[in-house]
């Protein structure tokens, strides 16, 4: 008996089952209603239930048939790109556009394998200046630009 090594399909199935059962579990808290008078819970519960079934099929196929192996995950780009975006979300309202854009560029840039300090400084300066010029002065979008200023 060969040892079972889960592949892409197996995990995709699990993901579907998780989504579907969450929808059913939460959706049951809303009024279901009847077919003639559907409540807010009817459609999500129905779709969620079908999703669980589809997830079971996908996962089962992942166990029975050979599916493509999962490639190794690289944590660094994933974590840095997401961190860059989250930093923007945290800083944009309190510290303004300049700080937020700098944060995105610097943290995001580190996600690529080759770091060149001079290039990073130039890129960060250019993108920050361009953002302020285009979005604040050009498109006149209501941004707070600098930290502190109203």
């Amino acid at each position: 008996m060969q040892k079972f090594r889960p592949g892409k399909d197996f995990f995709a199935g699990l993901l579907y089952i998780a989504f579907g059962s969450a929808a059913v579990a939460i959706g049951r808290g809303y009024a279901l209603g009847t077919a003639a008078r559907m409540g807010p819970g009817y459609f999500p519960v129905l779709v969620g239930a079908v999703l669980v079934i589809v997830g079971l099929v996908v996962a089962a196929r992942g166990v029975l048939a050979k599916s493509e192996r999962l490639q190794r995950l690289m944590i660094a780009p994933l974590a840095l790109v997401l961190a860059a975006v989250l930093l923007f979300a945290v800083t944009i309202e309190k510290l303004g556009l300049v700080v937020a854009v700098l944060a995105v560029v610097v943290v995001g840039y580190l996600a690529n394998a080759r770091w060149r300090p001079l290039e990073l400084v130039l890129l960060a300066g250019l993108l920050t200046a361009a953002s302020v010029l285009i979005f604040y002065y050009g498109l006149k979008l209501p941004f707070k630009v600098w930290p502190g200023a109203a």
Partner: protein
Amino acid sequence: MELLHNLQVGFGVALTYTNLFYCLIGVSLGTLIGVLPGIGPVATIAMLLPATFALPPVSALILLAGIYYGAQYGGSTTAILVNLPGESSSVVTCLDGYQMARQGRAGPALAIAALGSFFAGCVGTLIIAGFAKPLSDLALALGPIEKFSLMALGLVAAVALAHGSLVKAIGMVLIGLLLGTVGADTQTGQMRFTFGIPELTDGIGFVVVAMGIFGFGEIIANLEHGDQREVFTSNVRGLFPRGEDLKAAWKAVVRGTAVGALLGILPGGGAVLGSFAAYTLEKKISKHPERFGKGAIEGVAAPESANNAGAQTSFIPLLSLGIPSNAVMALMVGAMIIHGITPGPQVMTERPDLVWGMIASMWIGNLLLVVLNLPLIRIWVLLLKLPYRLLFPTILVLCCVGIYTLNNSATEVALAALFGLLGYVFIKLGCEPAPLLLAMVLGPMMEDELRRGMTIHRGDATVFLRSPFSLSMLLLAAALLIAIVVPAVRRKREEAFQEA
């Protein structure tokens, strides 16, 4: 005569300086992102939506549409010169286009791609002009049951045409439908899946999802692959194809246009499928199929014409029925809503200036694209030398600013990061995300029609089979699903995608 009058109205709108300007911006941006691998029309249109707030609706839609069909032109440049598809619809162009470039014939390959695209774009625009009105008249007569079945067919088609496993694509559609239910229920006001986050009251913004999954998710996946390119720039000499090239290519252009236009109209269709189908067809009917993959000019002409024809005709369901047929069109629906236009068949009669202005601008845009792509090819080639490590931080900034300005909401930026994570997981698990986005936009409309229809018919589900229109839509959907499960067709489908 009515058609002529409508076109006259359309050109009147499209030929104003303002709209010409936005059309030019749109197709230039489209070419740009088409040339650059790693950023597609979905993310770009999502990014630019907020920037169009201040524009009049017609100008905004002209600009956004230009990005989509412009990307089809630009995609071929990268495919031919770098052997990388700038766009997914140019995947097959790599096969013969890159071989032509290696043989020193990059010029004719680029020229035939641009000229073929132009021909296809003109035909596509004419088809839209001819079909949009009759279809919208038909759509006005449809009840909730019929509309539900029509949209169900659209989702099934999106599943059928997605890459990879059928069941997995169905799962993605269902997740999309669920995401569409988030927010206050339209009939009772009950909050659904909002987890107490006030920003979710109006539902998850599709721009947030699109940028998360197609923007951030793909950036992360691209960064894992690293940056390897080999550009054949020195070979772009002697643009004009020889007589024999033209002779070999023109039939392929016509056939490619026909295939692409037809597949573009189908729900779930668009530019990608047509290019695959056209390439397969050319190879099948060629007297020398062995030349394909070794620099056959038909192998460039057919798919490039097809993807452009498909990009044009995929606007038909949107303009006439208000139903988006793919992820890009789903974003166009969002753009219309942002500008206060409810998409649907009534737009055709209520806002003829908008619809016909857009149609006319497409023809003008195609003309501009030939000018942009042939003489200016060297400029686009220069851009190809821009390394991804400089490009992706720029995309990140544009995405963040874009999402934030949509509703001045930092929460939505954070939410997009979450969808970026989800998008990355989808890519890793081999789940194609495009059907999800389409389902997310169609979901609320489908739920609405379903509830209305069931109330009218007192919960009697057999009405779906008793209405002839609804029955034929559902039969078509069933036939499509069965056709894919049948082993022979399945092998063909896998082959078609495999050839990329």
